[in-house]
C-alpha cells in the first residue's frame, strides 16, 4: 500500500469542511501532522478552528471514511490544541475559493491587533462586486468563524471569515 505522506495528503485534499464545502481541510490548515507507523497505522493530527466548532466531529468522521475508501483501515485521529489555529494558516488558493464562493477571506491577523472598541475591520472587499465600501453588521455571524458585513454599493450582505 502506498503510505507515503504525499499520497495521504492527496486523500485528505478530498475532505471538505461540512459548513464551507469549497474549502478542503488542507486549505483551512487544520491538518497539523501525519504519522505512519510500521504496521500501516496512520495517525492524523488535527486542530480545531474554534474551541466549540461543531464541524470537528464531522471532519474526523469524514477523514476516516475517505481513508477507508482508499484502503487504509487503521486510522487514528488525534486532536492537538497547541499551537492554536490561526487564519494565517489558510492557503492562498483557499482564500481565493472562499471569495468565489461568496465569503470574504480573512485578512492578516496582525491587522486586527489592538483593535479599539467600536473599531471595524476596514476595507473588507465585497465578494460580490469587489467594492471596499462595506460595513460590519455583527462580529458574530452564521458560524463561529464568520462575521456579518454588508456592501454599501451593491447593498448585499455577506459573510466575512474573520481573523483568528
Amino acid at each position, binding site marked *: 500500500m502506498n503510505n507515503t505522506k504525499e499520497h495521504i495528503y492527496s486523500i485528505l485534499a478530498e475532505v471538505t469542511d461540512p459548513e464551507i464545502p469549497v474549502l478542503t481541510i488542507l486549505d483551512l490548515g487544520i491538518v497539523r501532522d501525519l504519522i505512519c507507523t510500521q504496521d500501516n497505522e496512520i495517525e492524523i493530527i488535527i486542530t*480545531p478552528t*474554534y*474551541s*466549540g*466548532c*461543531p464541524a470537528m466531529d464531522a471532519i474526523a468522521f469524514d477523514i476516516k471514511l475517505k481513508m477507508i475508501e482508499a484502503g487504509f483501515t487503521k486510522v487514528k485521529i488525534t486532536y*492537538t*490544541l*497547541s*499551537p*492554536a*489555529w490561526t487564519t494565517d494558516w489558510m492557503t492562498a488558493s483557499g482564500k481565493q475559493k472562499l471569495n468565489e464562493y461568496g465569503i470574504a477571506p480573512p485578512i492578516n491577523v496582525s491587522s486586527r491587533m489592538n*483593535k479599539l*472598541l*467600536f473599531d471595524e475591520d476596514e476595507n473588507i472587499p465585497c465578494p460580490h462586486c469587489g467594492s471596499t465600501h462595506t460595513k460590519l*453588521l*455583527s*462580529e*458574530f*455571524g*452564521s458560524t*463561529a468563524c464568520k462575521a*456579518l458585513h454588508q456592501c454599501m454599493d451593491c447593498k448585499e450582505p455577506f459573510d466575512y471569515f474573520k481573523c*483568528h
Partner: protein
Amino acid sequence: MKNENLINGVLHIADTVLILGQRNAAWCAHGPILEQDIAITNITLDLIGQARNFYQYAALLINEADNKNETEDTLAFLRTERDFKNLLICELPNGDWAQTILRQFFFSSFQQLMYQEMIKSSDNQIAAIAAKSIKETNYHVKWSSEWVIRLGDGTDESNQRMKNAIEYLWQYTGEFFIAAEYEIIDVAALKNDWLEKVKSIFDEATLSIPENTFMQTGGKTGVHTEHLGFILPEMQSLQRNFPGAEW
C-alpha cells in the same frame, strides 16, 4: 489523590464556563434582534467548547490518578450541586439584556486576564487551552464592552437598566479574586487590572462602580445559590434519564 488541586482547579474553570454557556444558551431565539441573538449564542458555543477542553483534561487527570472511567460527559452531567465549583455569578438568572450583557462583560474581562496568566503555565495542556480560548474571549470582551457603553450611555431607560444590573451583580464579582485552595493561578493578583478595565468602560458608559459592597462567596467550594439547583436537573435530564446516551 495525586494532582487533587490541579483537578479541582480545572473543574472549577470547566464548571464556570459550562454554567455560563448553559445560561446564555437560553437566549437562543429570544435575543433582542437577530444579529445579537446570533452573537450571544456564538459566545455560548465558544464557552461550551472551552468547557469541553477543560472537562476532557480533568477526566484524563482523574483517570490517571484513580483508575476511573470519567469522561467530559460524566463530569458535566452526572455531578451534583455540591460538586460544582462554578463562580456564583454564572448561575444567576439572565434577567434582562442589560443584566446578561453586564455579567458577560464582568466575566469575560476577568477570563481574559485569567487566560493571560494561564498561557504562562508550566502545565502544557493548561497553557494550550488558554492560548486557544483567549482568542475567542478577546471577541467577547470587545462585544460586551461595547454593549455596556451603548446601554449605559444610551437612553434613560437603558441607563437605568444598567444601573439595576450593577446593583444586582456587583456583589458577585468579589469571588473572582478570592482564591480557593486549588487555584491554578494567583487570582488575587488580577484584581487591580480588572477594576481598571471596568472603570475605563464604566467611565465611557457614564456608570459608576459601587463602593463598599458585601461580596458573596461559596461557588468555588460548592456552596451555591438556589439557582444552580434548577439549572442542573434541566441540563442533566437526558443523561440522568438515559445514562450513556449519545448523539
